């Protein structure tokens, strides 16, 4: 193994002033800039930038032309402020940590401000249905037509139900409070974990910022079960590392880690699997090194407990997990073998201008490059046993490359890789943070050793760090949620995620529950599928090409009637706006059907909807001018 150069060693082994916060007074004074306003000042700045983004959302609702500009200015500067505080040499560690926490809180507030009166995103509505089922039945494990697997992982529902029932506030308010608390908990846990691994506050804070800005993290600011499970996964990893490194009382850390692992297990399947996998990886890594082999048993204890809990939960409570996760993986492998990979194309409408497409690709590439540099620096450090976990973590960051391969090669790779990125970011975020910290420390070291005439060079080099950070920020923003077509709220888009939800289709979905009762077989476009299953608690139908063709047909044909009767469809929901706009997601219907020719080919014409008015025996039960609900009973569709 190549030894680190003297300069490198000096840079990485000298206690950095920023880590201790004990900067010599004269040096701190020399470093002061007019914009060094202190932590309260940064709080004011970041709050004002949050206000700018909220004003942009407000402007979007009233279709103001300045709104997109305000949005981008607000978001970019909002990231720049904590990034500056974190990377500044003279910042104390509380300033770094608090600025990261403020950033997490502001992002959470912005996520709420997008839809401040109710959940509109389809995944959030699915989890709200699980919560409403618990509140109505007073028991877990109730059938949720919109997300059947969700009923078997009741952690999120239990905690939200407790807040609703104990305080009396609405489910939406309780859900938002929980999301906010979970976001803060994730940030604190990530800071603690990265600090434990990198042994540097600046690296931890920089890594946490990179982790928070990742495209995958926008999903974790929604009311979904991953949001609650993720902080517990990070805590398990932190506690397992503490147990491994503790001189005394490692059992206390191991017990706490196992307790946290239990919460992850009952809250979210993929996070629980990721937890078991990362713990096993960590334990194997520690076992392979003679210096840490003795302590690896502690991590094996936690890993073994997590695996046993996961297996027991899946076997006894949630056996559906196999089919829920197995089917998409099987499909992805088959697609990869058959050469039907997703490639580098994005989900329709996810990115607006071509530059957004390139930015979304640049983010992962920059992460890969910086991670590679970080791995090199970690492996050229002194081979101290206390750096064993850091080295294992550096290896873990290679999972990003694996995910990029899955993203390109596998069928449905966009969805699979996107979901798994959150767990990979735990490695890459940390390594990128370490690389940024080490690079900054080397710049300082070189500046100290050189004369003033070389001063401009480090500034140029520092701009590389700033540019990389900005690229990661922009990439995270353009490829995260909400997608480009609904980046600002206020414009109705047919079959958009949140922009396709408006009072007309909300009213129709809400009407269906008391009027029709729960669990009816209902078919409609994507928005109807999402809203009737969640707000209406109906058993909506999707994923059948023959049904899509039957819906689009302008006349009632025998094959169309067979498609409806084969799937026991009783009610059909139509929205006349599907005949006026092209579907913004590239398809009118639900599921991963953008590859399905039947769902994509052709637009829905007014005649296609009129056939339900004209077919004999069909009743029109509901009409609000936009949305209509038809009962097929007694017609050729349901003989």
């Amino acid at each position: 193994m190549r030894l680190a150069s003297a300069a490198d060693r000096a840079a990485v082994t000298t206690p950095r002033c920023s880590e201790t916060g004990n900067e010599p007074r004269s040096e701190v004074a020399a470093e002061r800039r007019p914009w060094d306003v202190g932590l309260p000042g940064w709080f004011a700045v970041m709050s004002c930038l949050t206000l700018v983004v909220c004003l942009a959302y407000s402007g979007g609702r009233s279709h103001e032309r300045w709104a997109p500009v305000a949005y981008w200015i607000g978001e970019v500067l909002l990231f720049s402020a904590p990034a500056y505080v974190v990377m500044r040499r003279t910042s104390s560690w509380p300033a770094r940590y608090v600025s990261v926490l403020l950033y997490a809180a502001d992002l959470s507030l912005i996520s709420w401000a997008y839809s401040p009166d109710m959940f509109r995103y389809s995944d959030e509505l699915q989890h709200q249905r699980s919560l409403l089922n618990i509140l109505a039945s007073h028991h877990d494990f109730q059938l949720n037509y919109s997300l059947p697997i969700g009923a078997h992982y009741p952690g999120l529902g239990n905690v939200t139900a407790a807040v609703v029932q104990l305080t009396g506030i609405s489910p939406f308010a309780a859900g938002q409070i929980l999301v906010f608390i979970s976001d803060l908990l994730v940030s604190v846990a990530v800071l603690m974990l990265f600090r434990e691994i990198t042994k540097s506050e600046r690296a931890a804070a920089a890594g946490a910022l990179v982790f928070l800005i990742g495209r995958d993290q926008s999903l974790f600011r929604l009311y979904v079960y991953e949001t609650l499970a993720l902080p517990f996964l990070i805590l398990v990893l932190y506690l397992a590392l503490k147990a491994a490194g503790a001189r005394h009382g490692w059992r206390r850390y191991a017990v706490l880690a196992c307790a946290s692992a239990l919460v992850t297990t009952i809250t979210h399947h993929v996070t629980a699997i990721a937890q078991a996998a990362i713990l096993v990886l960590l334990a194997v890594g520690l076992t392979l090194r003679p210096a840490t082999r003795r302590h690896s048993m502690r991590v094996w204890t936690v890993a073994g407990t997590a695996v046993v809990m996961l297996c027991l939960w899946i076997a006894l409570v949630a056996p559906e997990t196999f089919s829920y996760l197995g089917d998409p993986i099987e499909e992805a492998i088959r697609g990869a073998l058959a050469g039907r990979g997703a490639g580098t194309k994005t989900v329709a409408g996810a990115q607006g201008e071509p530059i957004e497409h390139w930015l979304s690709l640049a983010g992962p590439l920059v992460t890969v490059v910086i991670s590679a540099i970080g791995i090199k620096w970690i492996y050229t450090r002194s081979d101290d046993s206390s750096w064993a976990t850091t080295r294992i973590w550096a290896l873990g960051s290679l999972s990003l490359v694996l995910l990029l391969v899955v993203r390109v090669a596998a069928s449905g790779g966009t969805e699979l890789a996107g979901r798994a990125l959150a767990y990979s970011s735990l490695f890459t975020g940390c390594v990128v943070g370490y690389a940024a910290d080490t690079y900054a420390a080397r710049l300082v070291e070189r500046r100290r050793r050189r004369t003033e005439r070389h001063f401009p060079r480090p500034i140029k080099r520092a701009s590389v760090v700033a540019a990389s950070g900005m690229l990661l920020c922009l990439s995270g923003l353009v490829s995260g949620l909400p997608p480009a077509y609904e980046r600002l709220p206020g414009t109705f888009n047919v079959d958009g995620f949140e922009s396709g939800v408006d009072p007309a289709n909300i009213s129709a979905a809400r009407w269906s529950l008391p009027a029709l009762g729960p669990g009816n077989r209902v078919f409609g476009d994507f928005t109807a599928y999402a809203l009737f299953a969640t707000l209406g608690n109906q058993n909506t139908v999707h994923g059948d090409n023959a049904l899509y063709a039957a819906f689009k047909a302008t006349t009632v044909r025998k094959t169309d009637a067979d498609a409806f009767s084969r799937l026991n469809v009783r009610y059909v929901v139509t929205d006349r706006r599907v005949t006026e706009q092209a579907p913004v997601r590239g398809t009118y219907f639900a599921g991963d059907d953008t590859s399905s020719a039947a769902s994509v080919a052709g637009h829905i014409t007014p005649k296609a909807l009129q056939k339900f008015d004209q077919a004999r025996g069909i009743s029109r039960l509901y009409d609000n001018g936009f949305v209509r609900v038809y009962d097929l009973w007694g017609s050729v569709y349901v003989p």
Partner: protein
Amino acid sequence: MFRRSLTEILAVALASLCCLVLMVSGAPLVLTIPAGLLLAFLPGIVAVCQARSEAMGGFARLAAVIAASLGILAVLGCVLTWLPGGIDRRSWALALLLTTTLLVVGAIARRQRCSLPKMRLPRPAARGVISVMVGVLALLGAVVVSLQSASQADNEPFTEISAVPAGPLHRAAVGSDATLMVTNHEHGFMHYRLVIVTRSEHVTRNFSLKDGATYEQSLALTKGGFTASLYRGDEESKPYRQVWLRGGDLVPQS
């Protein structure tokens, strides 16, 4: 003994008080919100206080309290679901009181003192106070702007009409009843005319609704079903909204 365990006993007393408030039916939100939140987080606070957490930093302690509280609620819900009372306010209150008590008893039995975190707040400078006030005002402004703009969003007005036959399967049968409902979402007061046409009769109803109000009418189904057309004000031509019940021209009730 009593003096040494004063903090622990205080925690149980506080949990009992919160539990009592939550047991009172019809307690106002100003009481239930603080009592509920305190009771939800009390087991977590007690657990972290007695877990020899003095060595932990402020951030770690904060994370530990939040994580312990959320974790206890998540697991407790899985236990409550198997009990006869299920998951409701009463069960939560009693379960959390019991959990707090057990944690306290455990601490006393192990002769472990519960130490509350000692917060060392920085001395506020005038410039810092002003900055914090500006920040808080900006955040409040963000909340107000978001709520106000969402409530005034440019949504298209509409009126909904529905016809739902009675019965468990909602199968329209001759002789059974159906319910007609009209709800106004037009953002203002509206006059409507409802025309119901069956094979044998033609009935007209005039009514007015304020925004958000609902008109409801029950009618008996006859063979051939009915068509209900809704007109706005004095409009004569095309119906504004229309529903009908046919169901294979309606089956005779057996």
